[in-house]
């Protein structure tokens, strides 16, 4: 998948909000790309724009190209797009409590895409649904098909969501904060499961998260987003060893460290991510940035190549301590 210059805006009563501002990225077969940022940084909107999952209006995709297997997803007819959603591209939503329909049995919800996309018969679909539930590690799968979502715990519901997303052997799985609502032990189970499934099925995964700890363990590459821009993009090792954007550094610094005594206060980033009512002419992070200088107020830095696929959008070279 290749995404170029994706821009999404929301038309609200208070004016237009620029949520995604010219994002380009690629996803290779079988790799795991993490998208990291605070809430409101545009992570989810970006991914939902790819499949036009946003309510339009108020949302509008102003420009961009999403090249997937030689087709531009944004140009597809609604009927064709339906084939892609849940077929070639699976989507796991953040909240397992609200994204399953409470009045339908879990089995029905898993079988629905199977019948729809793969044209399986009731019997075949049921068989496949049992396989899927076993794959994601739900014990007593055949019986549990007849249960309703409320009869499952949070972790189990998230597994059901994963099963639905995997139903049609997608080439790409987009997981929007799949573990945020879960406990650490359940989170560890889900992460382990995703790692295993990835090896087995060889799909590419986009993992949206705000937890840099989780991202460290599973990703191949990481994309850091802020205010609808990609501010840093690197291979996972480079990003943690050599974070180049002040925002990435600040995010890493907010995590409590292992260093035992001595550490008293956590570093925090003051202020909030902005809601951009106008397309910015300055660096959107400048008001919260400790290194901001006059150029940051006048020009929004583009994503610059720093070698070996490490890209950063910042006028300040944190390593040299001087402007670029």
């Amino acid at each position: 998948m290749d995404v170029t210059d994706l821009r999404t805006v929301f038309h609200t009563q208070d004016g237009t909000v620029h949520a995604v501002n010219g994002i380009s990225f690629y996803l290779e077969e079988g790799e795991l790309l993490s998208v990291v940022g605070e809430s409101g940084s545009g992570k989810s909107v970006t991914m939902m724009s790819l499949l036009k999952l946003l309510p339009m209006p108020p949302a509008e995709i102003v420009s961009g190209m999403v090249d997937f297997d030689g087709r531009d997803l944004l140009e597809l007819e609604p009927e064709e797009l339906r084939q892609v959603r849940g077929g070639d591209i699976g989507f796991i939503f953040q909240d397992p409590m609200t994204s399953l329909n409470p009045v339908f049995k879990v089995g029905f919800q898993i079988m629905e895409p199977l019948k729809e996309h793969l044209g399986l018969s009731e019997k075949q679909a049921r068989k496949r649904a049992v396989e899927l539930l076993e794959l994601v590690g739900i014990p007593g799968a055949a019986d549990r098909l007849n249960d309703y979502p409320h009869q499952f715990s949070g972790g189990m519901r998230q597994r059901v969501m994963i099963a639905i997303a995997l139903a049609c052997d997608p080439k790409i799985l987009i997981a929007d904060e799949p573990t945020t609502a879960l406990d650490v032990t359940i989170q560890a189970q889900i992460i382990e499961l995703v790692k295993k499934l990835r090896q087995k099925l060889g799909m590419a995964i986009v993992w949206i998260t705000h937890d840099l700890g989780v991202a460290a363990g599973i990703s191949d590459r990481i994309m850091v987003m802020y205010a609808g821009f990609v501010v840093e993009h690197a291979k996972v090792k480079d990003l943690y060893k050599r974070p180049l954007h002040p925002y990435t550094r600040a995010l890493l610094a907010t995590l409590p460290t292992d260093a035992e005594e001595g550490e008293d206060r956590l570093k925090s980033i003051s202020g909030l991510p902005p809601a951009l009512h106008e397309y910015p002419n300055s660096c959107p992070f400048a008001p919260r940035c400790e290194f901001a200088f006059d150029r940051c107020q006048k020009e929004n830095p583009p994503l610059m190549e720093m070698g070996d696929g490490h890209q950063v959008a910042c006028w300040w070279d944190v390593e040299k301590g001087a402007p670029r």
Partner: protein
Amino acid sequence: MTKHDQVLVKAQNVKVHFPIHKGIFRRQVGSVKAVDGLSFEIRKGETLGLVGESGCGKSTAGRAMLRLYELTEGQLDFEGVDIAKLNPKELRSVRPRMQMIFQDPQACLNPRMTVGSIIAEPLDEHTNLSTAEKREKVKGLLDAVGMNRDYVNRYPHEFSGGQRQRIGIARALALDPDFIVCDEPIAALDVSIQAQVVNLLQDIQERMGLTYLFISHDLSMVRHIADRVAVMYLGKIVELAEKRDLYKTPKHPYTQALLSAVPVPDPEIEAKREHIVLKGDVPSPANPPKGCNFCTRCPIAIERCRTEEPELRELKKGQFVACHLAE
């Protein structure tokens, strides 16, 4: 680090069971043992972290500490007075000294009250201050939590999550309490905002000499803020120790699993680390397993664990563990 010797809160065998009623006659058919025999001390000026998965009873325990739930059994001393036995009037006089900060700053503030009246409400209830004095006090409290004094006439929806949590903290501080139960105060906040709120809590503690019971499922944050940590599983404490002992040498298999499940923000360490992945979910507290509560998920359980319940015993000074196999 200062020595905390004086005991402020002492819980002995505290139990909170919720009855389950069934049938037309609503007969009691069983009970949810949300908190099932907790015993621990909280010393003056310290922060005791209480961690565990959702559904393990940590929030119930926190509320029980303030007697927001009636105890089914047990004794709960607050500065030597058993508050579990106080009558409502006596309890009311102790209430101002114990406060609570809630998890969801959205839900715990009345949307139809201004910030000023939210913070002043405990003052209306428990003090005889004049309106002018109250107004001054509210402004002082807003200063104390790092908010603009001019916000008194605004409504909660005008604020972000972190700011709302600050309002909740200001309300908890209004009556100069000694003891605050923080029930997952940062769980609903963004990472960068979490750090701000945790810093604020620590500053206030230092300034006002507060004692915290800090309930959280975020082990790394608890490690940062707590002095001692108690790990709960299915209504019981499975391990209680000084922070350093607990994180360096966890003795209970559940604590070990919890700690190994916390991801480390460093890809190289993360690749090498061994994860203990627990199978399954926490069993229902209405029907806990026989023997050790953890035996259904424990990777090292032996036969004895399924029949005999382990006692919380002191393994070494200050480190208590409830496991037959820990040594």
